[in-house]
């Protein structure tokens, strides 16, 4: 995890116009999303500090001490190769964060611009895009990612690519529908009328409108992305050993579930917690940013 990207992200958040601060504020006032933020924050800190916090080298094997139950020496026990599960989970946080963030970045940066452009200009390209997304969306994400990962050979990078390729059409669809609606808005038409070029209209007027729904969708999807990656790892299309990826760890540990429950239980809890953090944040962000849900129902 690169802390500089995080810092610049927060910087940007700080200079956003007040309306956004309101959204952030509302997000944080919701106890669910606050808890989500805290969980994710804690995980980011753990990921960043993994080398200092992990009591052992996560890939160092120690066959004599394999499958040791949780003890003072190994708080979460050891796995089939005698590796310290706590250390592996700590390092695994980095991997899951990387998968989640890179997939989000790749999928939205393919999907959103395509959707904005074709939705704004309409025409043949738009039709074509719709057919292409139809094809992709005619398939469950896991099965598609499975096929792509199988074709590309299973590595961590290819898992990210496979999930991104399976995920982008949803964002293209979403961005397109927003762009379609916005191009009819008065202020966009006005901008066109006073002679703003298409690039300027897209950048200044359409793009900002797309950011919020895409962010909502993305925050809701984040947990699903991590689960898909873990599912791929579980059926053997994921990261390679000795990489401490959580899905692979569960898969390795399922063989020991009746006797050495700790091998798969702790990574299972780690994934659940991580996904839970994103899901709570996602819900909170949606509540805060989606105008339809704001202040209703009381």
């Amino acid at each position, binding site marked *: 995890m690169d802390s500089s990207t995080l810092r610049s992200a927060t910087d940007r958040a700080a200079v956003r116009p007040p309306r956004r601060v309101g959204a952030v504020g509302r997000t944080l006032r919701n106890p669910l999303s606050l808890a989500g933020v805290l969980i994710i924050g804690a995980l980011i800190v753990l990921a960043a500090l993994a080398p200092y916090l992990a009591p052992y080298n996560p890939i160092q094997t120690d066959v004599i001490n394999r499958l040791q139950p949780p003890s003072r020496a190994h708080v979460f026990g050891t796995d089939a190769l005698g590796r310290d599960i706590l250390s592996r989970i700590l390092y695994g946080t980095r991997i899951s964060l990387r998968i989640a963030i890179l997939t989000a970045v790749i999928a939205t940066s393919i999907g959103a611009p395509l959707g904005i452009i074709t939705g704004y200009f309409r025409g043949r390209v738009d039709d074509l895009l719709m057919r292409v997304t139809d094809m992709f969306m005619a398939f469950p994400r896991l099965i598609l990612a499975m096929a792509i990962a199988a074709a590309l050979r299973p590595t961590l990078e290819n898992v990210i690519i496979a999930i991104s390729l399976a995920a982008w059409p949803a964002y293209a669809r979403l961005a397109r529908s927003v762009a379609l609606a916005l191009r009819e808005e008065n202020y966009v038409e006005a901008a066109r009328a006073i002679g703003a070029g298409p690039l300027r209209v897209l950048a200044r007027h359409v793009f900002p409108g797309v950011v919020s729904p895409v962010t909502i969708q993305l925050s809701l999807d984040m947990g699903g992305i991590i689960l898909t990656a873990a599912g791929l790892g579980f059926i053997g299309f994921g990261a390679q050993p000795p990489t401490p990826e959580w899905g692979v760890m569960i898969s390795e540990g399922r063989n020991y*579930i*009746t006797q050495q429950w700790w091998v798969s239980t702790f990574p299972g809890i780690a994934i*659940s917690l991580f996904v839970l953090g994103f899901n709570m944040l996602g*819900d909170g962000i949606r509540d805060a940013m989606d105008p339809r849900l704001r202040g209703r129902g009381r």
Partner: protein
Amino acid sequence: MWAYIVRRLVLASIAIFGVLVIVFVLSHVIPGDPVVAILGGQAREDVVEAVRQRWGLDRPLHEQFFRFVGRLARGDLGTSLATNRPVATDLRDFFPATIELATTAILIGAGAGLAVGIFSAVAHGKWLDHVVRFLSLIGLSMPVFWLGLVLLLLLYARLGWLPGPGQLDIFVSRPPAVTGLITVDALLARDYGALGSALSHLLLPALVLGSHALVGIARITRASMLEVLGQDYVKVARAKGLAERTVILRHALKNALLPIITVIGIYYGGLLEGAVLTETVFAWPGLGRYATNAILSQDFAAIMGVTILIALIFSLANLIVDLAYGLLNPKIRYG
């Protein structure tokens, strides 16, 4: 409306054809060799060559594709390398198991999801709402394969409340196959022993598979209900002094149902994804496992067969959802 359906079907078949081309190319750029995958590491080279020729896998790619499409046009899905049977037979055998599992899962998911969603919306903002949402979020956050293993261990191994993996108790013989759905076949044959056995086997995998749909449906129900509850006519209904139950069920829910139905449709199709993992954990002889095995052994005809079937289901599910929209909301016109 008929014109609309025809147009949708044409579009769907174009999309499915596109999917076929993509999957065909994908399954042929996969490093590996289906013949080797089936024959294993010990078969001699001459045998491998002979099998390759017999299945036409030594032909150029485009030729293989056209042969495939030609056969498909005649309604022949080809023969699976891995089962040595027509793919159509395989699909007919495996698909009902998945349909049965997915349908039960969606029934559980939709029923419980609606209830949780409504409850949560009514209690909006109160601590109960947060607790319910928190619990459902936990459900959504657990990997389905892990949840399956843990529940199997708990309810089968430790407590013995539910039967283990598989579709039926081992000694309960399968009722004569009419629909292929064991529960329905058992009902038709009035074999209530088999029905009970099938249902008890179905419960746990369906619960695990349906858990994500449950939470997803609960979420959208809550959101949709919240929106409707804020509308003026609901306020009016309340002002008229109608019972809260009536307001919620008769007035609000009816109008909140539209997006909920969409989501149920989407989840129903999406259950195939969870089926891949759930069927592995529960030794369920369904399409998900067939698909995984097909990809693992690069059983080309089987991969294409599954692809066609899944794409068809998805397109049909989408179409039905859109039509249901129209029935519920006459303002929507097809065009």
